[in-house]
């Protein structure tokens, strides 16, 4: 490299070297002024990072109810009421196979009587297929989610909630605890998993069971109004093709059900809602972060201005030894920019430690999160970028002041 590129590169390097040297010389002042920026950036990055975790917690909570994006639910009916469950299952499977849908589940509610030590109790049963666990991010506090092989069990697998399990005396799952399930007939279910309580009010025993295991046990009534099992049909498909696939699967499902059948399909996941459901949280986070950063910038600007006033002679001496006005401008600017960059890195580092700490995880509902997000890259970039921007803004006025220093006066100052 030679000629102007080499000169330009050397000029840039020497400007940074000069800025670093100034930072080293004035480290006391720099530390004082940058502590504010580092704290502001740390707060900013922590808020953004924690916001991302809180958002993920909220998203996962919504996904537990409505399914992950894009989850599409279908309801099938005929003019005479509910469709035949077995015929609908066949029609549904055919429609799925035709479209190559990988994740799908029937989902409905039924009731079975369970024999506890203190008496028989009717228990709400959520009736699902194995894919439901992935589609709805079902969390277990013990045991394992249903597998495809569970459908072939003679003693159906049952996943119970914490209240159910506690009522049984919290038996270890390794001992394969069983319960009597009473419906149209009586069978013995094996508890293979336990879901944690959703809230402090989640005290009634409920359970989840596979559709194929439940259907033989369901009550004789076929009227959903009387508590008969009437599933909806869910599929988890790529967000981008949701509209086309929904319509196509709907038509196929309807055609398979035969003449007179009606099928409704709709997006049930949170992402189908109008607008960004997390926008209010995001706006609040950004507002707080901006205020914090402005306060940091104000402190930095004040110290930078006072510092330049005290360095008039030094600037004059540098000018007399060949520093151009542009060089002085960029040197002073670089001092704050390099300083705030370092402060930004430190602030983001502390923010990462804070956000990843177990305490913060507990505060933000981290224990609830299945896919714990890493410290968001955008939080780190926003933190460091904001620090540099604040440095440039706060350095601008002092740099302009430094350029206006009259060399002749400065060296006789």
């Amino acid at each position, binding site marked *: 490299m030679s000629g102007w590129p080499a000169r330009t590169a050397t000029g840039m390097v020497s400007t940074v070297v000069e800025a670093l040297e100034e930072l080293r010389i004035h480290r006391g002042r720099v530390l004082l002024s940058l502590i504010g920026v580092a704290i502001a950036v740390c707060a900013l990055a922590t808020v953004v990072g924690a916001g991302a975790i809180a958002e993920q917690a909220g998203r996962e909570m919504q996904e537990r109810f409505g399914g992950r994006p894009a989850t599409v639910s279908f309801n099938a009916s005929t003019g005479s009421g509910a469709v035949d469950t077995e015929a609908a299952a066949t029609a549904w499977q055919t429609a799925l196979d035709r479209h190559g849908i990988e994740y799908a589940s029937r989902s409905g509610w039924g009731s079975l009587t369970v024999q506890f030590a203190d008496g028989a109790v009717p228990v709400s049963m959520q009736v699902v297929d194995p894919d439901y666990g992935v589609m709805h991010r079902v969390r277990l506090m013990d045991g394992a989610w249903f597998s495809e092989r569970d459908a072939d069990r003679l003693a159906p697998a049952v996943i119970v909630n914490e209240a159910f399990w506690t009522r049984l005396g919290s038996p270890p799952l390794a001992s394969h605890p069983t319960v009597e399930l009473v419906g149209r007939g009586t069978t013995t279910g094996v508890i293979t998993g336990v879901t944690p309580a959703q809230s402090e009010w989640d005290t009634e025993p409920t359970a989840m069971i596979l559709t194929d295991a439940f259907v033989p046990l369901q009550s004789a009534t076929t009227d959903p109004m009387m508590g008969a099992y009437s599933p909806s049909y869910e599929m988890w498909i790529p967000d981008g093709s949701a509209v086309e696939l929904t319509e196509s699967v709907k038509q196929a499902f309807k055609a398979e059900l035969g003449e007179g059948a009606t099928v409704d399909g709709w997006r049930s996941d949170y992402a189908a809602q109008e607008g960004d459901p997390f926008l209010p949280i995001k706006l609040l986070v950004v507002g707080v972060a901006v205020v914090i950063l402005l306060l940091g910038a104000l402190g930095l600007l004040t110290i930078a201005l006072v510092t330049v006033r005290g360095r008039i002679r030094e600037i004059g001496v540098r000018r007399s030894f*060949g520093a151009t006005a542009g060089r002085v401008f960029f040197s002073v600017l670089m001092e704050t920019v390099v300083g705030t960059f370092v402060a930004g890195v430190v602030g983001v580092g502390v923010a990462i430690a804070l956000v990843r700490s177990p305490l913060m995880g507990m505060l933000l509902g981290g224990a609830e999160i299945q896919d714990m997000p890493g410290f968001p890259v955008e939080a780190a970039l926003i933190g460091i970028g904001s620090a540099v921007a604040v440095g440039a803004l706060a350095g601008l006025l002092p740099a302009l002041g430094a350029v206006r220093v009259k060399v002749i006066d400065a060296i*006789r100052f």
Partner: protein
Amino acid sequence: MTLIEAHGVGRTVELPDGRPLTILSSVDLTVSESDRVSIVGRSGSGKSTLLNLLGLLDAPTEGELAFLGHDVRRIGSGARDRLRGREVGFVFQQFNLLPGRTALENVQTPLLYSGGREFWRRERIAREMLERVGLGERLTTKPERLSGGEQQRVAIARALVRRPRLILADEPTGALDLETGAEVMALIESVAAETGAALVTITHDPAIAARSNRHLRLVSGRLQATDAAADASAPVGSLHPPATPDADADAEAIAIAEADADVEAVA
């Protein structure tokens, strides 16, 4: 080689009340490589203004001033700064060392503004220069812990580290005792001799002025050649200007000198 050529150079400033004030007028001066020029004059006679013009820190308001053949009024601000950094070394009365930096860092400062190899080898060049001025053992000492003579040696090393062709020394011994002052001047002259640099010294001290081979006196903004022996024998306070053609001119010169002092005070 001619470094500086000044023909009819003048410098006029505007006073706060709008009146013009002439600080320098009709200055003719040529400085060539290896020249040793001393300029004496009363306070307010325009010595510093002339030094600023010669050092490209200021531009004349009249006349022609050429530096290495370039008309200084036609050189852009940035180019003038770079030319100054490359070709001119300043030695100040108050040393003007950067506080908080070691001697080595101070001497490196001008090399931060030189592109290319000088920048990348700045530490070695600065160390060699400090060794040359006898401060090889004080490289990491900060100015606050150096004696006046040592501080001026650091300032000399800094002024010469880029091997400028012109050294401008503004009262270089003004803050030193006689003996140290003589040593410092001997050092400046010897280093300048090595590089063939011209040395222009502004001083009140006739003994320092006498060390030069060309002797000039500034009287009320006008430059006059003078006799070294006369300067050396005359006390500082009695550097009388040569007889003026008439009393009016003498009175005008005193008025300008006083106004010059006013301007410097305002500045």
